[in-house]
């Protein structure tokens, strides 16, 4: 015969286990409904100094457009750092809940390397490519918006190369060729076809 006290203990434990199970399912559903994780940091990390204009070329899937969006922020003086900040800010914009051009969860930028004032190498993380939607248009909008945003900060820039986790990649997500350099002038010309 089980004592009354022991019955209470078992019942409490069973309820606790069931409650934990339901809470776990609730958390899982909540995480799925959120989609992209919230951007951990502010759109522009703090830098001391006078506020300057930071131009982002923001893609919109709704009308296949790339539009400049100017924000005011203190910017680092180092060109590479400034380029990194601009692209990081743009990617953070795309990861927000109301993004006009959503990127996959966890998409981020490792770094921007300036080989010389005219040549930049952008190193994106694996999630940027792996979680990116597949299609010529959506891939083109992502890459072109990064190129134009970088050009806005680095006026001498003439060519950009993209790496994924430090390695060359054939395509971004099955369509857009990432294996070579992007000629900035040709990207600007191609963007005339965008709205």
């Amino acid at each position, binding site marked *: *015969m089980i004592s009354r006290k022991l019955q209470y203990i078992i019942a409490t434990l069973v309820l606790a*286990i069931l409650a934990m199970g339901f809470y776990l399912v609730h958390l899982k559903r909540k995480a799925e409904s959120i989609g992209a994780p919230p951007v951990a940091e502010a759109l522009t990390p703090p830098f001391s100094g006078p506020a300057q204009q930071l131009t982002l070329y923001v893609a919109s899937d709704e009308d*296949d457009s790339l539009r400049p969006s100017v924000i005011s922020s203190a910017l680092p003086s180092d060109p590479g750092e400034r380029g990194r900040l601009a692209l990081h800010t743009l990617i953070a914009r795309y990861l927000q809940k109301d993004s006009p051009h959503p990127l996959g969860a966890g998409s981020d930028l490792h770094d921007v390397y300036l080989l010389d004032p005219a040549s930049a190498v952008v190193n994106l993380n694996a999630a940027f490519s792996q979680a990116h939607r597949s299609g010529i248009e959506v891939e083109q909008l992502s890459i072109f918006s990064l190129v134009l945003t970088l050009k806005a900060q680095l006026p001498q820039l003439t060519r950009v190369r993209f790496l994924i986790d430090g390695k060359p990649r054939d395509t971004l997500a099955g369509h857009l060729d990432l294996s070579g350099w992007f000629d900035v002038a040709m990207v600007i010309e191609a963007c005339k*076809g965008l*709205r």
Partner: protein
Amino acid sequence: MPKEHAISVRAIALLLVLLAAGFAAEPRRISVYSPQALYQVDILVREGVDYVGLTDLLEPLGRLESRADGKKLKLTFNGSEADFQDGKRQYHVRSNKLELLANFLLIDGRGYIPAASISQLLPRLADQAADFHLASRRLFIGSSQLHFSAELRHAPSRLVLSFSAPVNPSSVIEKGRVRLLFRREALVGNGADNVSYSDPFLQSISFTESPAGAELIANLLQPATVSIGDGGRTVTILAVPAAAPPLAASVPPPVPSSAAPSANQPHPAQRPRPFVILDAAHGGFDTGSLLSATIQEKTVTLTLARRLQKELEARGISVVLTRAADNLLTWDQRAISANTSHAALYIALHASASGHGVRFYTSMIPSSPPGQTKRSFLPWELAQAPYLDESSSAASALAAECTSAGLPVRSSTAPLRPLNSVTAAAVAVEISPFGSDADELGTPEYQQKVAAALASGIAALRGKLGDAQ
């Protein structure tokens, strides 16, 4: 430990096990190939032995009745009777006394036998041969097995695989090899799982099987394409003509923009030149983008290519496809097909759930410098340069017809393979739904509308593009 405590510990442990079961990994399964059905049976592991449920195994094969009585199970399958007893190896089928390789299990009225005993039980109970491949967990019942033979032929070099029944494998063309994956076919080896060849095209063939299916791998020394013929009974792995870049080369060698046909190809004068070559993007394992829960890009591009082909042929325009089945071609193979076809126009077909209407892309490479002609030697990745103006004109003509058909249109340049290496007017077309429903991409009505508009645009280009190169 007091009895009460022991009971409570067991109760909690049982609850934890039940909760954990929800997060457990997918169970191991046996793939069953039979003339009646292709199905899978879950494996139950008890004391290190793999068991299968008799009901799961036999129900798809015929009429099954079973009745548990205490520790005994009596079943009737298509009129044949069998008796089993929980915890015993011995059992009876049609009054014959037989022995399982491990004890019979009766759990909640359901009988389980060791998987390794299937080959013994089925022929006696179902009058059908059973061949169980233990390592790959594939069970072949009756005459379901499918056999193949391989033959190496020359001029041109090709490996011809003949099958005893139609197949539809997924093909993957990788560097130095072609993989054919048979997920639904009951393909079995032909006794020699690895065969080596002394041939400049084919190095070896190997056959492997796993729970996911069977795989044939052809290790090659030259690039190749894969085609399925004879109603699916033949798969041909064909060496790409000698003008193709070798598989081992990381960068294809320069080619003349008007490449002469190789010795293995018929002379252009001996076969009609198509006006247009249609390239349905993706294929095989490369599904392209997932357009909706059920529609893959590779399927839409292929059906659209076929519709466009019919529309063009109805207008008297000669057309060829780079792929007519669900097989994967590399970018270089697509460009080689286009260039060796000497078509005046190359059109790559893509599909996307994003955006609306039809988008046209031409190559994003620099224009030819002054003095460079279509007959100049060019790097492989810049072979399109002398044709950029023609490509742009073609894109404009196609866009104009689509606009007339009421489709939203946009044109741009983009870095896309294999456009850069095509020696003809070359345009990539990406279709998106007209409205917001991506399922529209798979509907015959929408595809037909787009195909008709594209065909009209192509027809308008006759006589405007340069001679086929």
